[in-house]
């Protein structure tokens, strides 16, 4: 990290661990297609399979359950489109998902509704950003047989709120409905045990936990068979085709291995930094509101995300002012067109559009230090004052 800048956007992507960089650099120097039959191919294959075994072990899964993809978006698409296509029939067209899913899940679902005749049922969330199990229960029981797939993220990427995955699986499992969870934000910050969760499929990605961008995995039970999205050589269990990226996968495994090994200790350290951060913010800006679940812990909130509403300010303006002061934060999930939209997550939680636009996400990670928190608190008074002034010139109507 540039010493002159404080990076508080680890939920967007986190720096690669030096060990992962080292493994990746080494593997990039190797020739060999893991599907080839000669010695170089076998050597590459060995790296891929050892990586798969390590990742499986760290996620509480079997190696054959790990299907490498290009990242979280592809894994989510494979799970949702694949399971919908594999299980749909004239009598079974429904997809259940939560209102706070990431666009990488939300958009495949709405695409299926628009183009493939899927009927979609959204599970609402409460003010903390946690799905309402009663509503989900009612939605399932309304007709369990017409559900193709049910999906609920493990932890929300904007709020950090952890979802009641155990209960969701219980609701669906008794009817044999496949359950998927996007665990991209949770991986590395809370313990994940795929077998123990009894999920049918789970998405993880490398770059959120110290690995490279461009590789992720759908962890999926052997007896669950989504229709593939990519057809070709069938490299990944015939569910996903394309020559596997040996160096990416090796670095992914290294990063996941280290991150899981350090998880408990890092979670404590990061939670303490976060506490200092929110204490400081609410001291400097007394009307600031920290959103989501106030409690720490693996059933409540990720340790690394602080989502804060600053009344009378626009998140966009604060982001820009922070950026100019060397502090890098986010207004939520980055949007494709660069046109700031109020977050669908906040709207789903019951925020009005003004409050939704007036919020920032601070997200910490393995490289975060006290100095990063100090810098935020040092520049916050001036940033806040200017953002408030800028909001006023808009006439206070938005």
């Amino acid at each position, binding site marked *: 990290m540039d010493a002159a800048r404080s990076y508080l956007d680890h939920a967007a992507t986190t720096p690669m661990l030096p060990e992962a960089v080292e493994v990746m650099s080494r593997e990039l120097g190797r020739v060999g297609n893991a599907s080839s039959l000669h010695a170089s191919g076998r050597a590459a294959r060995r790296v891929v399979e050892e990586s798969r075994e390590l990742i499986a072990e760290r996620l509480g899964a079997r190696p054959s359950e790990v299907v490498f993809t290009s990242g979280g978006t592809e894994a989510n698409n494979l799970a949702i489109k694949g399971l919908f296509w594999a299980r749909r029939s004239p009598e079974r067209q429904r997809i259940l998902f939560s209102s706070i899913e990431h666009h990488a899940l939300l958009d495949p679902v709405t695409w299926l509704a628009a183009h493939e005749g899927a009927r979609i049922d959204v599970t609402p969330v409460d003010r903390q950003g946690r799905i309402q199990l009663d509503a989900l229960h009612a939605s399932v029981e309304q007709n369990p047989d017409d559900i193709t797939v049910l999906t609920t993220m493990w932890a929300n990427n904007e709020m950090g709120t952890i979802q009641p995955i155990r209960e969701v699986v219980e609701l669906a499992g008794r009817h044999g409905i496949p359950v998927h969870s996007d665990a991209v934000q949770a991986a590395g910050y809370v313990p994940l045990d795929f077998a123990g969760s009894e999920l049918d499929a789970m998405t993880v990605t490398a770059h959120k936990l110290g690995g490279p961008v461009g590789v992720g995995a759908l962890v999926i039970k052997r007896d669950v068979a989504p229709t593939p999205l990519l057809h070709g050589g069938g490299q990944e269990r015939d569910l996903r085709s394309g020559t596997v990226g040996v160096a990416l996968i090796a670095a992914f495994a290294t990063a996941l291995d280290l991150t899981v090994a350090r998880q408990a200790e890092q979670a404590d350290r990061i939670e303490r930094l976060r506490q200092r951060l929110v204490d400081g913010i609410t001291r400097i800006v007394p009307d600031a509101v920290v959103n989501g679940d106030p409690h720490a812990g693996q059933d409540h909130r990720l340790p690394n995300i602080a989502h804060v509403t600053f009344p009378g300010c626009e998140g966009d303006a604060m982001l820009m002012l922070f950026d100019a002061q060397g502090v890098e934060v986010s207004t939520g999930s980055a949007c494709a*067109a*660069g*046109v700031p939209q109020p977050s669908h997550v906040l709207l789903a939680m019951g925020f009005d559009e003004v409050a939704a636009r007036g919020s920032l996400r601070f997200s910490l990670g393995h490289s975060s230090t006290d100095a990063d928190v100090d810098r935020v608190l040092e520049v916050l008074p001036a940033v806040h004052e200017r953002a408030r002034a800028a909001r006023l010139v808009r006439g206070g109507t938005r």
Partner: protein
Amino acid sequence: MRVIAAMSGGVDSAVAAARAVEAGHDVTGVHLALSRNPRSYRSGARGCCSIEDAGDARRAADAIGIPFYVWDMSDEFADEVVEDFIAEYTAGRTPNPCLRCNEKIKFAAVLDRALALGFDAVATGHYAQLRTAADGTIEMHRALDHGKDQSYVLGVLTQEQLQRSLFPLGGDTKDVVRAEAERRGLQVAHKPDSHDICFIADGDNAGWLSEKLGPKPGRIVDEDGRVLREHDGAYQFTIGQRRGLRLGVPADDGKPRFVLDIEPVSGTVTVGPREHLLVDTLECVRPLWCGAAPTETLECTVQLRAHGAEHRARVTVLDDERLRVDLLDPADGIAPGQACVIYDGTRVVGSGTISRTERIAAARS
């Protein structure tokens, strides 16, 4: 100075931003998102509202090495520019939304936000020149390249706004600017110019208006009141328009006919010969002055539409709200709603919005 460079995604604003950096300013690039639904606007390389344009602007800012953000001004744009455009056409006038956008968005909403955020000025890629007079006031002059000159659409800016504006391109021709963009490695160097109204994707103003306003049937009549045909919306016509009238029967004298008048309530559109379009007196409302308001009658020139000719004129301030403009050379095709921009030589003095015209022929008959 700390400067916001408004970057449309086109070549001009990109070079303007680069020049502002070179002049020693601390520059931040901003693309204005003006559409409520960015996907609904034009998707080509022309205009300033599409996702491609935002991407081009971002790419240019990265190449120049300045921070870049998208500012959502879609509500302000819808309220101040699009609504006004529709209302003006509904009232039988012909608005110029670019002036309106400069007056209400770029040098108002954007400038105000910039100032509140700690910036000192807004830079754009408009072709106009700013000069500091001996007394410290900022004068706005036509661009050196009269073919590209955009001082007409900036004629609504007040001294306060001019003090906070930078137009780094006013002293150059478009060719020079394009060559410079190329030299700086800006990908937008060969992007075509935009000409049409940015929020009307296909350039079909009449089609866009009829979609917004629905059918409003009325009649096209000649000056004797004879009905020539029905039409389904007076907003499809502009004073001075000749093409697309589809009158069927020729005039008695066989000469082409032009739209002379639009009566918004009945929707009656009057057509007649070109001579009857000639006006020598205008009345304007909403006068705006680049400096102090004049205290006596001005002997000056006026420009009555974008890229229009200059006319020698005498401008009298009737009161705070109204101007009378006597044209020494008559003009034709003058539509209420258009701006009358007043020049002293190359210097912009101010402007007014044309509210009424007096036709020579009508006055004499």
